[in-house]
């Protein structure tokens, strides 16, 4: 069984880009340990030779393709208006370099 430690929570916090308080780290370690222990039930199922489920429906086996023609798109302003900050027609972010 996998053990969820405070270090693993800190690693997951980094990978998922979510800051956590010390209290949350402890709580999440406990919650996730409970959940992971529960889902470990799956390990008893014999799956040798079984393919991964890539598609729920047999009808979805092929990815549909469309002609390479420009279709309708949203206005630039529609995208920009969704952003928290914009400047000179661009999304504004803090200095990167």
């Amino acid at each position, binding site marked *: 069984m*996998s053990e*969820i430690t405070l270090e*693993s*929570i800190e*690693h*997951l*916090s980094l*990978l*998922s*880009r*979510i*800051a*956590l308080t010390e209290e*949350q780290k402890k*709580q*999440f370690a406990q*919650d*996730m340990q*409970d*959940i*992971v222990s*529960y*889902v*470990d*039930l*799956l*390990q008893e*199922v014999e*799956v040798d030779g*079984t*393919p*991964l*489920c*890539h598609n*729920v*429906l*047999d*009808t*979805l086996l092929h*990815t*549909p393709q*469309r002609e390479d023609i420009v279709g309708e798109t*949203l206005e630039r302003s*529609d*995208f920009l*208006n*969704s*952003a*928290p*900050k914009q400047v000179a027609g661009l*999304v504004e*972010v*803090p*200095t*990167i370099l």
Partner: protein
Amino acid sequence: MTYKLPAHEIADKVRKKELSAKEVTLSFLAQIEEKNPSLNAFLRTHNEKALDKAKKIDSKKEPLGRLAGVPIAIKDNINITGELTTCGSKILSNFKAPFNATVIDLLEKEDAIIIGKTNLDEFAMGSSTEHSAFGPTKNPWNLHTSPGGSSGGSAAAVAARLAPLALGSDTGGSVRQPGALCGIYGSKPSYGRISRYGLVAFGSSFDQIGPFAHSAKDIALITDVMSKHCPKDSTSISFDLEPLTPHLEDSLQEKTFGVPWQFIENLEEEFATSFKESLKVFESLGAKIVDIDLSLLKYSISMYYILSTAEASTNLARFDGIRYGYRSEKADSLNDVYYLSREEGMQDEVKRRIMLGTFVLSAGYQDAYYKKAQKVRTLLIEQYKRAFEKCGLILMPTSPYKAFEIGSIKDPLQMYLADIYTIGANLAGLPAMSVPSGFTSEKLPIGLQIVGPHLKDEKVCNAAFLFEKETGYNTHTPLG
């Protein structure tokens, strides 16, 4: 008493000019104004737009559409141009959708009136509608209890007759379980039947938009309107599907229903008695009941919480404080924009699921969790196919619990178990509907679940309709 009418009757009367769309809209808006403050089912209503649309419908010269003048409530994770789509989250609290979901276009084309947006568990992650940044929704049958979730706002709205129809989304039971707890119909159509374009993604291989109504006929009506191939959703079925409405009256004589007895043996007594009574109703309609093997459903919650969180962890990566919604004021570096906006903008259940999904996909764990679950999913789909060789439809309870008190389930894993009977249909992409099938001794609703083979939604709705004609549980309302 316009607000008590089912949707198909409203549409008929509006088409025949016996009722105006304006009268209908005003009737429902008055109900919302009176009852919503105690229910918190709607997050907001679109009064002006709705009345404008009603006016246009009333003055239209051409024949009116199939949903003429029918007000419809929309879960707040489905986009409507120019309106807020918050997903019940602070991180999207100021996000206005720049485009319509395909379902909104299809409903409006048939002269429906989009009346407002309804509450949900944040990003549709939950089974109680308690985990919304905008407060919990209450169950109209008992205001101390939860309406279920995550589409609890839509379910409570239809149950309390604040709208004749509503849309929700069902990733693991989020339409059927609140349907059961609120005593109404809640349907999860087959995966691929209804376009997901414009539905904010949670678990893309599970998500399906589904309707709530107080009659099976209304479920058929709105499902038929929304069943259309959509090139903007690559999983949308591209061939013609059988409509539901023409099959409502099909006979159930000699039809076989399967029950996975082994899987539901621990059902509470009151629920077991109700379930057995429902089976007798189908037998009285000429159907046969047989035992089927769905032993892999024992693993459905395990599979679901590995696969849906894995998908959610990637789908929700886009909410990073850069392109939409909320950005932390405290952030002064790019990394802090990500970390702090997500920390401040999302609540614990969403964070827990993103981190769990990240865990099952991370190096060293992917084979043991993600890939293992994908393989068991393949086996479950095969097991369903074998079951459907023995029966035409499957009958199960919808929920293992009646409506529970708000705040009473604190352990996340206990909350996940609320979906034990519904998740299977999402794992296999099957059509499934919760049907009102009785009441507990405290007069809280009980739901029966009917599950069909891939794309055979018309058979599910047919059985639901005939069951309704025999039992009439849908005529009970929490209005007294």
